[in-house]
């Protein structure tokens, strides 16, 4: 475990990667795998949009469509946005706190392999007789019970998501232990970089919320195969139980998918504004306020059931806007009077701010039950959650890729292609998802494979579909960028961005044991302090 215990150099062949317990390699495996699932889930989304480009289209059947949106949602949420953050945190947390590895390296490797195979198990459903799971990523009982969803695909979905959820719980324990126990001398809690703080909050959320999902999945499996009747009112079960357990996990999950990316943004904006992060303490406290509040809002997904205390869940949901607002103002204050440059990581961070703001505002709207009565299960909600997870998390994911790519692989991604990638994704995203707000208000329910050729629906749907093809172009430009940058191989130094936290102290990519030396740690930006002592001297503590 200690940095001195370095013997032979790591194997760089396939076996070396399969047997690795190095947090950086596991991180890169997580990132690559989750990006792979992203490409698949994105391709499914393009088929969905193609089917919906025109009313009464017959690109796919109703049953294929149900499998498409089920796998799209499941993969984006369980196999991409959340695990990408785990991969990033795997790579970054030990580096940011000056540690040689994670607290439990082998548990870490186990988590990764369970995640990889969990995803494959879910997709394996597509090869079964009745196809993949087709009950939506929320897989509501009684729809997902054996009487209705008879196929093996649904069982594979349950097993796959269960594997991923257990893997995520193990990783959260690993992160918390690592941050609390493995910090370098001088790295006090109030000097931990914001990204690592956000991952602590995220891990606590996972630790509290994911067991509810695992229990829910087990119940459904028992219900399907061992006569559990947990969700069957005819046998004393409760059809609404699934929703309570699912959303008890499902709303914290939203923050599991956004808090890490608040961390990403908080790392990038100061670097490209040439200023320290503004309101460090406020950012940390707001992360935990969001995490805490998010444990008490699950039933805002159930306003239209008539079975929950709407005002309570509405009020707590509103309250989350306050710490989220604090973060926004801190980011703006970080840029205020700065010296702002617009390299690709900053462009994507700004895109995150512009898009996520709209997702946050529509989030406050749907937290109001009278609005939710129209918006629930309509395209308005589809627009809202894509502005949060697509316009928010996805843009932060690209920001992170461009920002930490040099640290991971020793080469920068191409800037001009990065700018193209950003603008294609930014324009494509908004053209795809903004019209969906109007579709929802107009009365288009989500998860429909067809719609009427009347009124505004055909025009708005066609616009959305065209936007999705523009997003595809953006993703292809990114792939091309990876190829070009890898072939050109222009090596970068340890600190290509003049950045702040400890990962920029060591070489790019870092050696297996991470650090040969560490700078003195006197603030949350020790590397900046060491490289720019004159500027550090005039920075208030």
């Amino acid at each position, binding site marked *: 475990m200690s940095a001195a215990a370095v013997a032979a150099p790591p194997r760089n062949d396939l076996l070396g990667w399969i047997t690795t317990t190095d947090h950086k390699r596991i991180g890169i495996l997580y990132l690559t795998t989750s990006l792979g699932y992203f490409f698949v889930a994105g391709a499914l989304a393009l088929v969905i949009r193609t089917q919906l480009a025109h*009313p*009464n289209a017959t690109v796919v*059947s*109703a049953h*294929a469509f149900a499998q498409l949106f089920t796998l799209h949602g499941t993969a984006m949420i369980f196999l991409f946005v959340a695990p990408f953050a785990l991969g990033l945190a795997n790579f970054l947390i030990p580096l940011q706190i000056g540690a040689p590895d994670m607290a439990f390296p082998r548990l870490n490797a186990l988590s990764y392999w369970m995640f990889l195979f969990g995803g494959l198990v879910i997709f394996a459903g597509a090869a079964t*007789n009745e196809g993949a799971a087709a009950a939506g990523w929320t897989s*509501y009982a*009684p*729809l997902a019970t054996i009487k*209705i969803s008879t196929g093996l695909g649904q069982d594979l979905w349950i097993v796959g998501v269960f594997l991923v959820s257990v893997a995520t719980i193990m990783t959260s324990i690993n992160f918390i232990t690592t941050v609390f126990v493995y910090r370098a001398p001088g790295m006090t809690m109030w000097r931990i970089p914001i990204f690592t703080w956000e991952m602590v909050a995220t891990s606590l959320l996972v630790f509290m919320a994911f067991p509810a999902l695992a229990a829910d999945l087990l119940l459904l499996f028992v219900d399907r195969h061992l006569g559990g009747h947990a969700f069957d*009112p005819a046998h004393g079960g*409760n*059809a609404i139980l699934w929703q309570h357990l699912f959303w008890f996990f499902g709303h914290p999950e939203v923050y599991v998918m956004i808090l890490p990316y608040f961390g990403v943004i908080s790392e990038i904006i100061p670097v490209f504004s*040439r*200023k320290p992060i*503004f309101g460090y303490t406020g950012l940390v406290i707001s992360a935990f306020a969001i995490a805490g509040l998010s444990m008490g809002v699950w039933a805002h997904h159930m306003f*239209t*059931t008539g*079975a929950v205390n709407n*005002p309570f869940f*509405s009020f707590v949901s*509103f309250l989350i*806007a*306050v710490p989220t*607002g604090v973060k926004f*103002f*801190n980011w*703006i*204050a970080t*840029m*205020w*009077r*700065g*010296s*702002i440059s617009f390299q690709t990581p900053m462009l994507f961070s*700004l895109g995150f701010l512009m898009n996520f*703001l709209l997702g946050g505002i*529509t989030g*406050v*709207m749907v937290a*109001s*039950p*009278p*609005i939710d*009565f*129209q918006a*629930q*299960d*309509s395209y308005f909600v589809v627009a809202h959650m894509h502005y949060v997870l697509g316009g928010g998390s996805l843009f932060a994911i690209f920001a992170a890729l461009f920002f930490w790519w040099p640290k991971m692989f020793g080469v920068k991604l191409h800037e001009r292609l990065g700018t193209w990638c950003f603008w294609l994704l930014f324009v494509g995203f908004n053209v795809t998802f903004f019209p969906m707000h109007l579709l929802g*208000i*107009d*009365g*288009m*329910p989500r998860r429909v494979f067809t*719609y*009427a050729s*009347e*009124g505004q629906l055909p025009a708005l749907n066609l616009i959305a579909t065209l936007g999705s093809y523009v997003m595809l172009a953006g993703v292809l430009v990114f792939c091309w960028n990876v190829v070009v940058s890898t072939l050109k191989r222009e090596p970068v130094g340890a600190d290509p961005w003049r950045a702040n936290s400890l990962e920029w102290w060591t070489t790019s990519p870092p050696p297996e044991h991470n650090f040969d030396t560490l700078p003195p740690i006197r603030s949350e930006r020790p590397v900046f302090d060491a490289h*720019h002592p004159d*500027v550090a001297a005039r920075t208030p503590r």
Partner: protein
Amino acid sequence: MRVPYPARARPKTGYVAVVHGQTWPATATTQSSVLASDWLLFTLVGLAVALLVWGLILFAIVRWRRSPTDGDDAYPPQFRNNNALEIAWTAVPLILVVGLFVYTYRAEANVEALLPKPDVTIAVNGYRWGWTFAYEGGRTISGAAQKPPEMVIPLGATTRIVLTSSDVNHAFWVPDFWFKRDAIPGRTTSFDLRPSKTGTFLGRCAEFCGLDHALMNFSVRVVTPGEYARWRRGPS
């Protein structure tokens, strides 16, 4: 993706044409006026917040963009805290959301209030993939995907909907009423409709319920009380 199982004949057209729907929804009940004004309030407040924050971001990145003439080692002032400002941008949004909550609470109570004695009571059952409307002491209307049922209710009177499902979760949604409620097996839930406009309004299932979820439509025809009385006696 595999071929559908069981192989299904595709419907020739997805929807049976209806008089209303798919354009900006009308506010066709007295409750929906309350609901739509909640939408309006939140949209205006949201727009104001969005313009303010977007404006601050755009102002900052234009005003303080790095110019090529700035020296490579030029760094701006390194300030990192302002307690007064931080308290302000915590407190002001807090006051704002408490205000919004009070408004929302009243609007919801208004919309969900049940009249002690409604004029018409209809037991609505959702099933895969259709609806049954059983009028208390009267007719029962039923219909599924290719022949959606029509609910007829009187203008100005209060109609109580008592909603349930006999298989999986569905949701009873009339966009022009700005309202939906889930139909859940083993539970009944009630709400009142007080139509303020005559006409035929499209209704649909909003909770995904399997293959033909997209086709599980219905319509609500609001008629004058006299017409309703004639309709209630049944087909002549």
